[in-house]
């Protein structure tokens, strides 16, 4: 790509130059013709030769070989005239025709046309003949065919004969990457706004339901008609809003996709310069190489390509310098003298696989093993395992340190760079047939799959790939080792800490069983106890910005699909911090466990029931959950309880009735009863308390602490 561009630039310069040269060639030829035999002639010839030499050099640089040859021939033709000899007119004809043909060739090259079949090509034999013997063999035969030359000139003087097909095409626009990034931010904002609109539609629906209820109350009055009108109006607005939301959502997503697409570049552009690198390295080492690029059209994120540049450069250099054999050795091995290094890119799901492959000698696994042993490392028997040793620092396979391919620092750096892209690099090698490095990187650096957890009342994001597993721990799986809590995993003792504690957040309530994420950073692991694992989802990753240079355990910010921001934690620093922490109270202390209280919970909504059950169990209570008051009454009769937590509205027997029944019973009459309900009106509350409830909590103001606090007070 680079080369193409360079060639393009060179050609443009050459063509510009050529125009001037044609003018001076014509001028000097004309003068020479006039002044031949005079003392000024040699000067003219010298000037002509200088000009031709320049054109020849420029033509070579611009790879216009036909032009180069023609100039060379012209030089040969004119050279004998240097000593003041005169030449027959036929020779001048040939020369003028040649200059015209050069002019024509320049125009053809400018219009990206081939020079095959051009007047210049047709003229070459004539030039050759003229050069071989100044007294041209066919004295007057050439001029007639030269007749087309002036004609060639005529249309050239008129507009331009081959107008480039630029008519209906749109001009490309240069846009800086930063501008596209800014556009992407904005389109992300648009998407978030579209998502929020969804929530608004739901709110409207709730309002409409409220209206329906209200209309029931005022049935038969004047208000009913007014309410009905309002209701249908609201329904209409809701419908229109939903339609608008769909449109907006669709547009926002499309815009986002388009902007992302605009930020991509073909893979081959990311490989710019690699071909030249391969050639230079090969030349320095006395090798021959051909670089092939497969999948060059694959469009990839610009920042990804940028980040891949260095690793690819390293790998290509290595492949040529250490992989390829000398042409001689290759011939002996029955391979073509020219070595091959191929780069390829292909999509695998939402990841990109980039391979760098050579057909050289392959990694010297024996030497790798030897070096590993020499450094006190284990040398695996398995070949693919052994090949991986190449990624360790200081285990370069090539005995000779070369100028171009690094000093044994290459591959470990490559791995570090690829891992920084959240990718992996693998190597496979076959002796005498070459090595293949496979880089597997995420398609985009701007989004990431994250595991959302909550700790200390905050939602936090962890890169999913850093999470080895999720576990639920019970107290007997946790041991104190040297005063530090440790999780007894099947195969190892893993340091255990509370995420809230590590981050300095308020601790969650101790629980019987604790959820924990096992993080992996290199070979180190640690289990971090969280309050809850919320979800796993895709998130946009945003840097913390210039104002926050470093943050404790925080790598970046994750923007969740609902537009909220969560801190993206750094697994490596968390793992380091988790070891070396004194024990915190993760589980309820044995004393509280011994006096576990038994609660009877009744709520007809399964969701609310499950929520309350988990809160209460989390606080260390034994909970018996019932679907209505009647069931709760039966269970109470059957097995007793220390307290009751009841919903007010329930089928069969509601909370009020159950409260009255409990109060009336001699056996359970003094049990604490907490009513939890959506009815927040003072008269409801009065009714509940009148029935004998010990406490009355309204669900709208419902938070776990108020329920737990109330129970603690009552028990």
């Amino acid at each position, binding site marked *: 790509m680079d080369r193409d561009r360079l060639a393009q630039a060179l050609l443009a310069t050459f063509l510009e130059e050529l125009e001037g040269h044609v003018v001076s060639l014509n001028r000097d030829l004309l003068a020479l013709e006039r002044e031949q035999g005079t003392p000024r002639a040699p000067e003219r010839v010298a000037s002509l030769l200088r000009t031709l030499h320049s054109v020849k050099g420029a033509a070579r640089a611009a790879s216009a070989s036909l032009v180069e040859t023609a100039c060379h021939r012209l030089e040969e033709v004119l050279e004998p005239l240097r000593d003041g000899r005169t030449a027959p007119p036929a020779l001048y004809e040939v020369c003028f025709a040649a200059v015209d043909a050069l002019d024509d060739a320049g125009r053809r090259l400018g219009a990206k046309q081939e020079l095959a079949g051009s007047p210049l090509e047709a003229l070459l034999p004539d030039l050759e003949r003229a050069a071989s013997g100044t007294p041209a063999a066919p004295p007057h035969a050439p001029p007639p065919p030269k007749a087309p030359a002036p004609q060639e000139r005529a249309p050239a003087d008129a507009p331009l004969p081959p107008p480039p097909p630029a008519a209906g095409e749109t001009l490309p626009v240069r846009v800086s990457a930063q501008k596209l990034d800014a556009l992407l931010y904005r389109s992300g904002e648009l998407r978030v706004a579209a998502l929020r609109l969804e929530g608004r539609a739901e709110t409207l629906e709730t309002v409409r339901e409220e209206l329906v209820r209200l209309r029931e109350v005022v049935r038969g009055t004047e208000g009913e008609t007014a309410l009905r009108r309002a209701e249908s109006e609201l329904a209409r607005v809701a419908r229109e809003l939903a339609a608008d939301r769909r449109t907006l959502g669709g547009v926002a997503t499309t815009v986002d996709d388009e902007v992302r697409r605009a930020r991509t570049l073909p893979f081959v552009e990311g490989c710019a310069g690699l071909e030249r690198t391969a050639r230079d390295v090969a030349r320095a080492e006395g090798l021959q190489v051909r670089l092939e690029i497969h999948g060059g059209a694959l469009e990839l994120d610009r920042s990804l390509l940028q980040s891949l540049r260095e690793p690819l450069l390293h790998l290509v250099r290595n492949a040529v310098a250490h992989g390829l054999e000398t042409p001689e050795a290759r011939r002996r091995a029955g391979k073509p003298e020219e070595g091959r290094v191929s780069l390829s890119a292909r999509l695998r799901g939402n990841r990109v696989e980039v391979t760098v492959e050579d057909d050289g000698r392959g990694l010297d696994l024996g030497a790798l093993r030897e070096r590993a042993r020499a450094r006190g490392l284990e040398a695996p028997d398995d070949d693919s395992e052994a090949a991986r040793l190449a990624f360790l620092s200081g285990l370069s396979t090539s005995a000779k340190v070369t100028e171009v391919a690094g000093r044994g620092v290459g591959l470990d750096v490559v791995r570090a760079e690829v891992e920084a892209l959240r990718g992996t690099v693998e190597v496979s090698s076959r002796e005498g047939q070459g090595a293949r490095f496979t880089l597997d990187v995420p398609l985009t650096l701007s989004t990431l799959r994250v595991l959302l957890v909550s700790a200390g009342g905050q939602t936090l994001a962890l890169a999913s790939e850093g999470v080895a597993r999720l576990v639920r721990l019970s107290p007997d799986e946790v041991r104190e080792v040297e005063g530090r809590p440790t999780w007894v995993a099947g195969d190892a003792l893993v340091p255990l800490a509370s995420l809230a504690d590590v981050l300095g957040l308020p601790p969650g309530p101790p629980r019987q069983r604790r959820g924990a994420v096992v993080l992996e950073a290199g070979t180190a692991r640690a289990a971090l106890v969280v309050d809850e694992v919320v979800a796993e989802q895709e998130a946009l990753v945003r840097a913390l910005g210039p*104002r926050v240079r470093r943050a404790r355990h925080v790598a970046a910010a994750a923007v969740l699909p609902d537009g*909220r*921001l969560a801190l993206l934690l750094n697994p490596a620093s968390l793992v380091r911090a988790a070891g070396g922490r004194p024990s915190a109270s993760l589980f309820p202390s044995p004393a509280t466990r011994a006096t576990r209280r038994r609660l009877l919970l009744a709520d007809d909504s399964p969701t609310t029931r499950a929520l309350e059950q988990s809160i209460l169990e989390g606080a260390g209570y034994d909970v018996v959950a019932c679907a209505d008051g009647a069931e709760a009454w039966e269970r109470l009769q059957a097995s007793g309880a220390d307290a009751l937590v009841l919903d007010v509205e329930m089928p069969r027997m509601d909370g009020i009735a159950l409260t009255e029944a409990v109060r009336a019973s001699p056996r359970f009459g003094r049990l604490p009863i907490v009513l939890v309900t959506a009815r927040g009106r003072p008269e409801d509350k009065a009714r509940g308390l009148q029935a004998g409830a010990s406490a009355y909590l309204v669900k709208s103001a419902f938070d776990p602490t108020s329920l737990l606090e109330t129970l603690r007070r009552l028990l």
Partner: protein
Amino acid sequence: MASLKGIDWDAARARLGRLAAAHEEGDTLSPEAASALLDERARELARPPSPELAPGTLREVVRFRAAGQRYALESRFVLEVVRPSEVVPLPGAPPALRGLTLLHGGVLPVVELAPLFGRAPTNSTGPLLVVGKDQPELGVRTEEVEEVTLVSSQDLLPPPATLADEAAGLVFAAERDGVLLLEGAALLADGRLTFDLSDEGVV
């Protein structure tokens, strides 16, 4: 002819006499008076040009309240006023850094002014002033953004001497009713508003 005769020689002589006397008087300025005059002139020359307080200069400021104190900041430093949906606190952050919020899809640090003035921040949840030169750099938490007005330099007083040293550079003037005028460039350049929360002490 008549005009030649008409010269009042006496009047002319009297005028010359007065001029001569005045001239003599000017030369005999008492040494004290002379040095006082020179001192006055030197002072005039040595006085630094004060465009900040040049009479009649108008500047547009955004007035706001933060942690009970009223401030004004030149509007060219205020890019936006927003109400963030949420501010996520950062572990181990100093009191001046309330947390992070999202602005146009990017991360914006939310800061409190009070700690810069040696006072405790309040937990206000008012709008943010998005402060920056060309791009948003900081979200300054306020209790209330009051108005955008023009301030004439003539109405400004020097900042109060009681201001804590660390805050002196941030304020360039005060108003009669106690509003402090913040120096936007100094605020943006204040090292306490760039954060480096390393792992030290935690690992």
